[in-house]
């Protein structure tokens, strides 16, 4: 080998080594540090306030949107490297994540989270516990649902915009169907009662008694089948506008006033309606629909191998029980809390201009007390997706009867999860 060849090989290796060494040096500091991963920008406000209250703690927040957040979280939990001390989990993924054996047991001391749960709505308490009843996370958000309605449309087609009166007129699905049919006709197809079938689906799926999978067996709660049949009827009677949820047509309809009712939870007020239809402030109201329901929610969980458990717990406690902070959060951000004691204190004074001055905290507190618990298994998020696909096929006519739909659904579940018994 000649000299220049040797030199060349040497340089290549030198370069590799420099890159390897240069990039893997990481810094470690001795300060009190807290690492948080979140998928929601709400965290920003809370972290700011938490740091104001605890200037000695350095908080490092990583923000990633929902799907990717869960994937990233799973990958670090699997190798237990770079795991954040506290992480936010969206309700859809929570049933799966709360069963992961890397989450701190919050039932035990020094946490004794049961004391915090006592201040919350029953349905949230049920969500916070894993299959063995151990508390694995704390929900900071209250998410009871409401029927949001356009007051101008209610006046025009129902003759009243008073929440009490409207509630009586929509106390069951039959009444809503009749209204829908009439409204479509009177408006020449411009106005529909509901945006799409998920307004029916989300209400009904909150009222299930059993999760999709019990003891490795597929269970189809009759409530779900009824919901699909209702959706079919609603579609055929033109009660639904068929705007895809979260799509541009859907958000635009809020501004245009082409849909009378939206079945949505608390957080939709600032995040959906005010956001997408700012010019319609004062034209809206909230009322009770056919059944109480809930939608979404966020849970805070702690990594069991964290070295900053004390600080992590401080943050979780702060977000669920700190009276000053939570009062501020509720007032400034129109944020309905999981802590019902504080909600009740605020109920008489908090009104929304967007809802034409309605006392919305009082309304949602009432809705939260009535909200049903809907048990979820680790499979539920995936199987919900399969079910929704099948219901869509049924509504569009690709699957002709409800029996076809169920058979096709069972087949898919069996394919994707061979360990589940489908019949």
């Amino acid at each position, binding site marked *: 080998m000649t000299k220049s060849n040797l030199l060349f090989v040497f340089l290549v290796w030198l370069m590799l080594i420099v890159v390897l060494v240069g990039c*893997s040096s990481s810094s470690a500091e001795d300060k009190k540090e807290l690492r948080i991963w979140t998928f929601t*920008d709400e965290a920003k406000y809370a972290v700011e306030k938490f740091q104001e209250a605890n200037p000695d703690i350095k908080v490092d927040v990583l923000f990633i949107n929902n799907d990717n957040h869960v994937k990233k979280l799973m990958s670090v939990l699997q190798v237990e490297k770079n795991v954040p001390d506290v992480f936010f989990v969206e309700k859809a993924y929570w049933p799966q994540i709360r069963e992961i054996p890397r989450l701190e047991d919050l039932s035990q001391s020094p946490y004794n989270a049961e004391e915090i749960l006592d201040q919350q709505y029953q349905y949230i308490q049920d969500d916070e516990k894993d299959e063995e009843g151990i508390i694995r996370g704390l929900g900071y958000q209250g998410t009871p649902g409401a029927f949001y309605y356009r007051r101008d449309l209610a006046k025009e087609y129902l003759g009243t915009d008073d929440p009490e009166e409207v509630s009586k007129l929509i106390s069951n699905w039959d009444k809503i169907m009749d209204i829908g049919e009439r409204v479509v006709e009177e408006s020449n197809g411009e106005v529909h009662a509901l945006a799409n079938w998920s307004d029916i689906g989300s209400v009904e799926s909150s009222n299930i008694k059993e999760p999709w999978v019990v003891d490795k067996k597929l269970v189809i709660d009759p409530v779900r089948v009824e919901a699909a049949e209702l959706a079919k009827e609603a579609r055929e009677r033109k009660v639904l506008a068929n705007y895809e949820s979260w799509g541009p047509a859907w958000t635009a309809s809020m501004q245009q006033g082409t849909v009378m009712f939206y079945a949505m939870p608390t957080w939709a007020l600032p995040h959906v309606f005010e956001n997408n239809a700012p010019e319609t402030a004062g034209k809206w109201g909230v009322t009770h629909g056919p059944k109480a329901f809930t939608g979404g929610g966020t849970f805070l969980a702690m990594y069991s191998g964290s070295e900053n458990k004390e600080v992590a717990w401080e943050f979780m406690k702060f977000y669920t029980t700190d009276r000053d902070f939570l009062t501020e959060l509720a007032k400034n951000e129109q944020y309905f809390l999981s802590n019902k004691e504080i909600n009740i204190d605020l109920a008489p004074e908090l009104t929304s201009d967007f809802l034409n001055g309605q006392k919305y905290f009082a309304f949602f507190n009432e809705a939260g007390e009535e909200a049903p618990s809907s048990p979820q298994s680790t499979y539920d998020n995936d199987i919900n997706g399969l079910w929704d696909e099948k219901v869509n096929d049924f509504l569009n006519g690709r699957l002709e009867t409800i029996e076809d739909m169920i058979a096709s659904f069972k087949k898919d579940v069996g394919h994707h999860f061979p360990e589940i018994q489908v019949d």
Partner: protein
Amino acid sequence: MISETKVEAIHDKRKSKRIKPSHIIIHILLILLAIVCIVPFYIMIVYGTHTNADIASKFIFFPGEALIDNYQNMTENINIWRGFLNSFIIAGCSTALTLYFGALNAYGFAKYKFRGNKVLFWFVLATMMVPQQLGLVGTFRIMYILNLLDTYAALILPAAANAFAVFFVKQFIDGTIPDEVIESARMDGASEFKTFNRIILPMLTPALAALGIFAFIGSWNNFISPLVLLFSNEKYPLPVLVQMLQGYYGSNYGVQYLGVALSVLPIIIVFTIFSKRIIGSVAIGAVKG
């Protein structure tokens, strides 16, 4: 084979022939196709200057007035310029590694008949056939073992082993570089690596220029690896930041379009400025020929 005068005669004949109708039709078709290619870019940029309400309710073809609002809205949460820097470091280093080691390896396979040459080359080819998405779990593990998680190196180093580059350059060497070139270099007493660095590498310029564009763009647009392998906000490249925009601004399409447009714009600009050189360098041979 062909005499010089004959070739020149053709050139003269070309010049004397003026515009043919078929040439006009070809130009019109080319222009139409070019418009189809540009429209989505135009839409993307124009949408970035509108408010969300506008975008949701109608089809837009002219710029709006929300550009500054959208931009301010975006910079509140996202440091897009830092993302540029990161993307540039990662894509630049990756491309350099891909080109040099890809060419080195391809040359080794093309011009040295060592034992196992064919088998190893087929092996390289076969690795391209394993879906990338699957390696993710293993990649995460190896980076963890080597303590490379959350470093640029985790994204840059693997670029040195780019099977596509090897295949691409080897195909080019097979077609264009005769063995005589190497033989004559050896006669002159040049060492093997010197021959590669001084003689072969310059001859590969057209292929490396094209490959360089592909490699750079591929790395610039890579989303899933940085998302999985990096953990610090200040290290994220552009595509991850754009994805984060989606999280911050949920259904605010105006801001999202602006983010996407901004992430693509520099490539477009660089590409437009250098396209004559880059793609043109491929064409140099044609002009000379």
